[in-house]
């Protein structure tokens, strides 16, 4: 009995010691290629059957990576993958398509999604970045992320998937950056981009091109009280997106608080929907405390911005609203200022018909905005990163007119010898 105890202690020391070594091993760069093989080391960016060559499948890489590892993926068409590992804030895990030619057209082996970042059990799939993949024709979602903190999905294209193009649930601080999502979904509950559930506080949705959803919204955030937590998504930042032609709403914002929606271009979304919709869910968890500022919204059929009765303390300013329905407050308790409304947008934009919403030199929206409103500051740069203001004051809308300043004086006294 004593002997067995000693053996058990020795085993434990060796086992956990081994784990300790594994945990502290340095981060690696792995490669996945169409001409690689899972018998390879994965450490060299070249084809082969064994030894120093790249792996063949994304799933093999997903099962192998640890915090800080990077997986560089060559061009080709791959089966999707599901990852349940996790990185850390300082050592995220990266899956990167090296030259934007990595396509995922087949669902991963476990779920019906192309890429699935799945938190199971007590170890959430934190700090995983997916960069540059093209994911399409999936039986469910293009890219799905559940439960992990600090997940980043960027530079991906997700289209023609049966459900959401990019989806997250209870993923705190998720960042959805510079993606293209279109033609996703099969029902009004499935959207091009969908950030869901109350643990998604701090979400950033920036720089995405979101258009032509099949049946749902372009972009939806939903605190989703029925799914637990406080039922709100707090402090989301939705900026610099271009959202158009979606079947339902451009931006459907359900039960979000203290967020900022700024510098977005939104136009021609569903005939029964409209541009930005701040709303509750089933009579609970009204959206409140949000700042909607410097957006350009061109919705000929429905309200450009609609805030339902009960959602209050939202600050709406410096926006351009084109369309006969304009900005609609269904209830009270909200604040608006310096919004420019126009029925047809004439005289405002460089080319409204071509959806170039840069301002004309003599657009009345120039300097129509305010630097701040009720202590809520307007963004210091516009959709393209140009500083605000450039003229006499802040322009309304997503674009600040690029005033051409007077040139400096010409040099004198040029001599050549």
């Amino acid at each position, binding site marked *: 009995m004593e002997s067995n105890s000693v053996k058990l202690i020795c085993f434990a020391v060796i086992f956990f010691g081994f784990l300790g070594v594994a945990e502290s091993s340095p981060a690696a760069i792995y490669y996945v290629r169409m001409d690689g093989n899972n018998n390879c080391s994965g450490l060299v960016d070249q084809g082969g059957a064994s030894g120093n060559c790249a792996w063949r499948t994304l799933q093999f890489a997903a099962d192998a990576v640890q915090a800080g590892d990077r997986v560089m993926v060559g061009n080709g068409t791959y089966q999707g993958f599901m990852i349940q590992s996790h990185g850390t804030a300082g050592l995220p895990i990266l899956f990167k398509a090296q030259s934007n030619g990595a396509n995922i057209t087949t669902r991963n082996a476990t779920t019906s999604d192309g890429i699935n970042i799945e938190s199971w059990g007590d170890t959430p799939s934190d700090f995983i970045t997916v960069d540059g993949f093209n994911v399409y024709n999936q039986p469910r979602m293009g890219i799905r992320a559940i439960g992990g903190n600090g997940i980043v999905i960027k530079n991906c294209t997700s289209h023609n998937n049966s459900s959401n193009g990019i989806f997250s649930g209870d993923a705190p601080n998720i960042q959805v950056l510079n993606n293209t999502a279109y033609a996703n979904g099969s029902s009004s509950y499935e959207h091009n981009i969908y950030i869901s559930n109350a643990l998604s506080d701090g979400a950033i949705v920036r720089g995405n091109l979101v258009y032509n959803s099949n049946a749902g919204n372009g972009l939806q955030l939903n605190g989703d009280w029925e799914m637990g937590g406080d039922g709100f998504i707090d402090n989301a930042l939705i900026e610099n997106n271009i959202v158009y032609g979606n079947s339902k709403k451009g931006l459907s914002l359900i039960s979000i608080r203290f967020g900022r929606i700024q510098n977005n271009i939104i136009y021609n979304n569903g005939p029964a929907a409209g541009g930005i919709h701040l709303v509750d869910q089933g009579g609970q968890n009204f959206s409140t405390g949000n700042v909607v500022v410097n957006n350009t919204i061109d919705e000929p059929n429905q309200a450009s911005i609609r805030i339902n009765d009960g959602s209050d303390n939202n600050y709406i300013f410096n926006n351009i609203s084109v369309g006969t329905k304009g900005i609609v407050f269904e209830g009270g308790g909200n604040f608006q200022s310096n919004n420019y409304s126009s029925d047809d947008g004439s005289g405002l934009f460089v080319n409204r018909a071509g959806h170039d919403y840069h301002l004309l030199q003599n657009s009345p929206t120039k300097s129509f905005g305010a630097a701040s409103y009720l202590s809520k500051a307007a963004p210091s740069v516009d959709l393209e990163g140009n500083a605000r203001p450039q003229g006499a004051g802040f322009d309304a809308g997503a674009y600040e007119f690029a005033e051409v300043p007077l040139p400096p004086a010409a040099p004198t*006294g*040029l001599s050549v010898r």
Partner: protein
Amino acid sequence: MNKTFLPMVFALVLVLTGWDACYAYTAHLAWNTVVDARGIAGYKVHYQMDSAVPPFNGTGATEIDLPGQSPTPNTDISGLDPAHSYSFAVAAYISVNNVKIESLYSNIVTVPVLTVSITAPAAGSKVGGTVQVTASASAGTYAVDFFVNGILQIPRLAPPYTHAWDTSTLDPGSYSLSAKAYYSPESEIAGESATVSVTVVKAKNLETGKYYETLQQAYDDASDGATLMLWSSDNIVENILCGLPKNVNIKGGYDKGFPPNNGGYTALSGSFTIGQGTVVLDRLVIL
């Protein structure tokens, strides 16, 4: 009186190569700093080959971006071809949202193609003593350098580009004359002339001032009563036939400057035949 002397050689002929025209120069540009309350972000130098018409954005146009400000802005542009003219201008710029807002051009400075040629003495001339070398240079030339056998004789000569070349200390023979025209006092920008070959000789007709490579040529060309002067420094190796009905004085012992006579002698080696007329020989040593 018939005398025979050994043949005489009066001159050496040196053939020297001309300038190598395949070179590139560097232009040094400087201009006044521009002050702007918004902050000058830099300057752009624009230049264009073979055209002074702004803006300089056609064929052969180049733009150089010089970010930053300087109290004494300047730059060097190398690799310029002297066979082409170049026009230069500078613009200042400010930067707004990463867009550079340029000023108008500064004054435009055009550096022309500089040409220069030796106009005197003529190619193939026989010269001696002090020779007036003259060059002609194109408009835009600041000064001219003179070269003999590629060696600078006098730098940055102002118009009318005339140089008194003293051949009196030279050995007889062929010499190569050339010139360079410069754009400015310290400039590398220059045009180069073709070379002109002349021959420095040791025989001169006192009355006419003409120079001769051989004593025979001098005798044949001399008029009745002429005096032919010979250098004292070298042997004259030549067979001479004095067969014309005229009186000629042949005097040795002269300095290369013709005159003065230094009181020495000239050595004659070869046959010296007097068929007609009278020949007076003075200060000659017949070997």
